[in-house]
């Protein structure tokens, strides 16, 4: 029964509902599981939003990198190089320092004051960094897929008189998605893993509202026992990874539905850390 009270008090602690004070002594297993699970809400928030927004920028960047005119190609290449060649951790620090330097009263654009204060908060500032970062990584995957679109498909499109935007939307883009999807699945998983870095870079955890790893570290520091909180985080993340693989697998099946034989299950290859 006691555990129900703990869940009621701390289940949404990370977004500011429930008990204000964190437990200070006599930590129970229930408290640790509840609070760390509450922190997972932030990981899911950062991962899901950055992924959704990043998808569109990544597609644009991939097309930009494949463009003929250097006016579009060069900026895309530089963007991808900048975010893939440097550690995400440094990007967080740099972005935070840059956001702090923005004028506090906002920037005047055509008479409208754009508020900039929220950029120094984790919920927006870190999201911007993650969004740009995942766009660069995904763009490289999509670019590789774009280059592997079979020549015959394009020639067939030409033969049928499909060109321009409709050729892209109906021929190139679906094939690009289909080819790039396994790589993109891995990218999604790593993005969720990368969200744990947010509260360890400069972004402050306001009123101790942090992510899963923030609370795990809180418990590990208080109890000086790493053998309970970190395995709990690990278990939550394995669960999250399985859900991501499942969801992306469904989409993968949808993308490959016209092909003879079932699409191969996506092989998860954990080889990327920022």
């Amino acid at each position, binding site marked *: 029964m006691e555990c129900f009270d703990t869940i009621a008090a701390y289940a949404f602690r990370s977004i500011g509902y429930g008990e204000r004070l964190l437990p200070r002594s006599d930590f129970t297993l229930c408290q640790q599981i509840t609070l760390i699970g509450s922190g997972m809400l932030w990981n899911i928030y950062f991962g899901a939003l950055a992924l959704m927004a990043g998808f569109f920028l990544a597609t644009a960047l991939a097309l930009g990198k494949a463009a003929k005119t250097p006016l579009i190609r060069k900026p895309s290449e530089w963007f991808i190089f900048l975010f893939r060649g*440097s*550690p995400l951790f*440094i990007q967080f620090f740099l972005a935070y320092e840059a956001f702090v330097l923005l004028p506090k009263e906002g920037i005047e654009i055509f008479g409208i004051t754009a508020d900039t204060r929220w950029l120094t908060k984790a919920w927006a500032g870190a999201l911007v960094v993650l969004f740009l970062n995942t766009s660069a990584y995904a763009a490289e995957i999509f670019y590789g897929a774009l280059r592997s679109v079979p020549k015959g498909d394009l020639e067939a499109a030409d033969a049928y008189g499909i060109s321009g935007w409709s050729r892209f939307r109906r021929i190139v883009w679906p094939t690009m998605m289909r080819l790039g999807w396994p790589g993109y699945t891995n990218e999604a998983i790593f993005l969720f*893993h990368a969200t*744990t870095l947010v509260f360890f870079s400069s972004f402050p955890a306001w009123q101790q509202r942090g992510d899963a*790893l923030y609370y795990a570290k809180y418990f590990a520091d208080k109890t000086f026992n790493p053998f309970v909180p*970190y395995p709990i985080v690990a278990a939550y993340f394995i669960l999250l990874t399985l859900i991501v693989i499942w969801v992306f697998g469904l989409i993968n099946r949808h993308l490959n539905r016209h092909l003879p034989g079932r699409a191969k299950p996506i092989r998860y290859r*954990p080889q990327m850390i920022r």
Partner: protein
Amino acid sequence: MFAYCADPSTLQGFAWLTCYLTNGKHLIAYTSIGTVLLLLAITAPTALAFGFGGAIAARSRVAPVRWFGQGYTAIVRGVPDIVFFLFFVIALDQALEWLRHKALCPDWDEPIRQGSDFVVCTAAKLPLSASPQWVHEVYGFLLAVLTFAIVFGAFAANVLYGAMRAVPTAQIETAEAYGMTERQSIWRILVPQMWVYALPGLSNLWMILVKATPLLFLLGVEDIVYWARELGGTKGVIFEYPHPDWRLYYFLALLVFYLSLTQFSEVVLRRLSVKLSRGQATFAGERQRKATT
């Protein structure tokens, strides 16, 4: 550093900057670049050795060894690496202290975990509380290196395991048909040939390792991120070289440092790949052969 730096308050412009960038604190900070390179230099071969052991274990015919190897490679899947970094640093420290405690103080009867404390006898402390500061720093650094090696060893094991399976089985069977023992066929046939298959994965891993080095900061080592925050912070008039908050510029410098490091690695790895493909029965090797003839 320079003779004209004796009184910084009289300096202006470029001269001030040269003095500022060569003052004592900055010179210490530059050595932390060495810390990062040292970490890379120690971790890369250690992780490769761990990975090789893991891959060999995962191929073993003895079931418990195979389970260990497969479990080790599976450990990094699905869990963020930073969780491992934070976990292993404390866990390794406590494990070492516990082992020493068991060996050095057998007649200690109090429990080791007392509430929120981890208590071992004084003789078992690592490093001993009487040790000088540098011993503590070296110990912390070595723990970080070991942690990196364990985590990246698991990644490397994954790559090498795949590479070993990519070597044509016919070659191993031929070796055994000629009467080589299993050990001989591994060392003379499998290992020399697996590198060309492992290289793409290993170069990827190297890039990841380079980009993971700022995490040293989280493990309590005074690395370049630590110094960038330390030196960049606002310095009031009581300091020799007062300046406002310059952390942005310091982190920009770090960004450039990492970009050039990854770019340099990419060039070196591309050359290595050309070299390893020579004479191999692969697409790249075949293309090289055709280009020369």
